[in-house]
């Protein structure tokens, strides 16, 4: 077992880069996206629906759609935000179409009548990101680790580089080294050994 032969470079890629790889035909990139996001999306759906099977169906639909429409998706922001919104739409759709969720509808009705339209803001991508982070914190430790590593290595190179006044390349290298070191301490990462 040799550290240097560790070559799964997918988890060093940003979400958007993975999407691009997937568009070019990489099924492995799709699987990596699934690993990254299924958990947070599941939690998001589950929090509203409190129903394991329905939450499962929704996550499954989101990824099935990502697979079939991956080519034509035009991201206006981050892929994370896109997936959040896709999940939200499906959850809302489910609320509208299943009798079991009637109490949700009455709650919504109340909100609508009580709302003060002027105080309402659009939900920004930043807020969505914050929510995603919150969901990540609710994941079991192991899953969270994978997720956080991947995000830290993928999303914030620019920021870190900027803060430390280093080149992005340097930062990327250091982070991937850190990940690799950590990975070797975690046996469960070696897929087939």
């Amino acid at each position, binding site marked *: 077992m040799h550290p240097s032969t560790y070559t*799964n470079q997918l988890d060093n890629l940003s979400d958007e880069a993975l999407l691009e790889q997937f568009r070019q035909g990489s099924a492995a990139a799709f699987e990596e996206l699934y690993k990254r996001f299924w958990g947070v999306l599941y939690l998001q759906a589950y929090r509203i629906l409190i129903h394991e099977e329905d939450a499962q169906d929704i996550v499954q639909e989101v990824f099935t759609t990502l697979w079939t429409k991956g080519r034509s998706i035009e991201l206006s922001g981050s892929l994370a935000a896109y997936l959040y919104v896709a999940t939200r739409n499906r959850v809302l759709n489910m609320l509208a179409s299943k009798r079991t969720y009637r109490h949700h*509808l009455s709650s919504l009705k109340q909100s609508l009548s009580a709302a003060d339209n002027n105080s309402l803001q659009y939900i920004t991508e930043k807020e969505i990101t914050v929510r995603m982070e919150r969901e990540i914190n609710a994941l079991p430790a192991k899953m969270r680790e994978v997720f956080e590593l991947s995000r830290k290595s993928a999303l914030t190179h620019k920021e870190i580089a900027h803060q430390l006044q280093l080149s992005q390349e340097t930062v990327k290298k250091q982070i991937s080294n850190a990940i690799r070191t950590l990975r070797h301490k975690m046996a469960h990462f070696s897929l087939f050994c």
Partner: protein
Amino acid sequence: MHDIKKLLKKYVAGKCTPEEQRLIEQWYQQESDASKADTSGLPFEHLEKNIWQKVQQQTAAPAKRVAMHRYTLLRIAALLLLIAGAGTLMWMRRPVRENWQEVFAPKTQSLQLVLDDGTRVWLNAGGGMRYPAHFTGADRKIELLSGEMCLDVKQDPAHPFMVKSEQINIRVLGTVFNVRHYPQRNFLQVTVQQGKVAVPLAGKEVVLLPDEQVTVHTGSAAFSKASVDGTAINGWTTGKFLFNNERLDVIALSLENRYGIQISFADSSLAAYRITAGIETTDSLSDVLDMLCLANKLNCTANGQHIIFRKQIH
């Protein structure tokens, strides 16, 4: 209540007014924040597998999982499985190339793939290849665009395996072998570790057996055959560079790709120096350079990412 349903449907269809949209989204967040759901006991591992399986069933081309069997090469710590399915390819822009995919190993890292037929490919850092997501037709053909690859070809006599590189079609007869193609140096080299391959050169087929190597100058089609250590040449797939009486310019290419550097020679005769050395891919660049220089009476100076080799002046 009916109105609310309609409103939600309208929202999902993207036909709400901005106010309605904000209201609904706001409510969704509040619901989520106020949720009484206890997520701590959810069977995450089971769910992950379960949903993934369903996604696989739903999508046209399930990505196969490759069961590992005993294979002759050392185990690799982690794999990049690129098992492509036809469904993935529906969006390829050029329908002619519909079934083909390209993959490039990043600078400084090799990657590994398993092809549709179970053939294993190691693509060394900086290399590029094209391969079909599915092998259709009488033979299995892939293409090495540039760089170095090692193949562990799945036996299937009914479907000969071919590697195309430059204009040369290497015919494989169930084997572990290595192809290097460095277009910038007109250099193409095939080395066999196990089994047998046939390389059509100068109008006839040159057959290579284990530990045999053919080096082709693609500019002039001149080639030469040599006996080498076929296992050593694929050392990089297990984290070792084993250079066995190897030309320095070829070694330089390996190092360039491994460390993301540029190497040049102050004296052009250095390119043809023959060197034997073994390094670990984890060794630091400075260690490797020190070792090469010390053992072979060379001097090297670094200028950022650019390394220049010189002969030692006595």
